[in-house]
């Protein structure tokens, strides 16, 4: 399944360094609010792209969804169940270095299947997913022997091989060169259509969101308004932004919303 309901979510940190400065009488009040009053609902199978400036709390939101971090208040329900801890039902795809460097591609992909008893079935599945991300022949390579794009694909294979309800991706294309970025984006879209699971992606790239997303969420600062936009995009794939009127208009709107005027 993979229906996600985020209700009145808030995340506050106490600034410890300020706290220890005893001569500052306001020190104990120094609380940093990262998320405030966040309400979102993602449908099962949706590809959700979250845009927002640095420091708007989008990464914090992802970490809470993944169960790596606890919310200060509010709750997140996945298919009606609150998230209490990380689980292989919700796989987090890291920005970079998410593969375990001391394990080969094969061993990394095997992580989620290591409890399978049927050796033959396990091997077949691993091979199938390695082929899906076009890493045939690289099974026994260590991550550092692969290019950045290949590393992301290997991590993608590791994530989807466990058939998770939800994929959480934190800037999955950052640090890739331009063409690899476009190819990876296409692969993620194809993969999404194939596995049909909910995917939540944080990105800096407006085009990524326009090309990929079934739903675009724009986050702003918690001190003003956390969710600036939450819109469903009912366009088919593959998409060409230049050829779709609605996407071009939305792009202008997103640029303005994120404070970039000259692009419009």
């Amino acid at each position, binding site marked *: 399944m993979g229906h996600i309901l985020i209700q009145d979510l808030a995340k506050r940190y106490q600034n410890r360094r300020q706290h220890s400065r005893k001569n500052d009488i306001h020190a104990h009040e120094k609380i940093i609010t990262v998320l405030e009053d966040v309400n979102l609902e993602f449908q099962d199978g949706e590809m959700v792209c979250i845009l927002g400036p640095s420091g708007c709390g989008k990464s914090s939101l992802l970490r809470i969804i*993944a169960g790596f971090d606890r919310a200060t208040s509010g709750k997140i329900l996945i298919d009606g169940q609150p998230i209490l801890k990380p689980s292989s039902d919700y796989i987090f795809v890291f920005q970079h270095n998410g593969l375990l460097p001391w*394990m080969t591609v094969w061993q990394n992909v095997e992580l989620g299947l290591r409890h399978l008893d049927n050796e033959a079935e396990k091997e077949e599945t691993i091979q199938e997913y390695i082929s899906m991300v076009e890493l045939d022949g690289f099974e026994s390579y260590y991550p550092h022997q692969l290019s950045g794009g290949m590393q992301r694909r290997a991590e993608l294979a590791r994530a989807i091989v466990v058939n998770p309800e939800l994929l959480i991706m934190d800037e999955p294309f950052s640090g890739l060169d331009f063409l690899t970025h476009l190819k990876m984006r296409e692969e993620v879209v194809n993969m999404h259509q194939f596995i049909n699971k909910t995917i939540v992606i944080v990105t800096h790239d407006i085009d990524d969101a326009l090309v990929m997303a079934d739903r675009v969420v724009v986050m702003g600062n918690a001190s003003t308004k956390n969710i600036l936009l939450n819109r469903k995009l009912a366009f088919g794939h593959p998409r060409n932004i230049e050829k779709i009127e609605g996407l071009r208009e939305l792009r202008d709107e997103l640029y303005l919303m994120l404070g970039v005027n000259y692009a419009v």
Partner: protein
Amino acid sequence: MKRNPLFLSSVSFSLLILLWAIITYFGDFSEQIFPNPFLVLASGVELFNDGTLLKHVVASLYRVTIGFYLAVILGIPLGIVLGRKYLVRQLINPIIQFLRPISPLAWIPLAMLWFGIGDQPAIFLIFLSSFFPLVVATTMAVNRINPVYFHVAANFNFSQQEVIKKIIIPAILPEVLTALRLTIAIAWLVVVAAEMIAVQSGLGYLILDARNALRMDIVMVGMIVIGMIGVLLDLIMLRLAKNDAIGWNKAS
């Protein structure tokens, strides 16, 4: 042009021995004070042939092995715990930082009182000399593990045991192997000193005994053998550090 490093080091050693020979030949030293290389070589051969040398070498290596082994099996697990458990680290680390700068040699009087005469005090001193550096190096290595790997572990439902076996140990292995290499050199330094006090065998004892008999040729044989074994130990550890298990590590 790149020469064989073995060739170059044999050149430098030949020059060193030649210099030594020249100084002792032309200098006005008595053999009791500064023996020439031929005399040292002859004594070395004699000690080797009658088995004395081997006996002392084995005694020293035995103590180093036991003391070092104890330090490894206690120090590395403690380092892992200190690296992972904040509270334990806050509790134990100050003690370790306090004990660490005390030279193992300062422990000699207590070691002798507690363990008597024989192998145990020497082993205890070697253990001390290796234990603290290993604990500190392991703690730091564990601390430096990228937190992403623990998130991956949590994401794939790793048990506590799996976290240790599949994340912590492989992640710290390169740094721990380096630490082992540095530590065994310290242990080898300390064993000689320890053997000058508490025991009747080992290379340290050989040197002390030869000094008492004013046999500087034997003292020098002892020194040379210590140096050779030190190099050998380092080569073994270096070999270990080129292990397949850390082949993933770019830096190595």
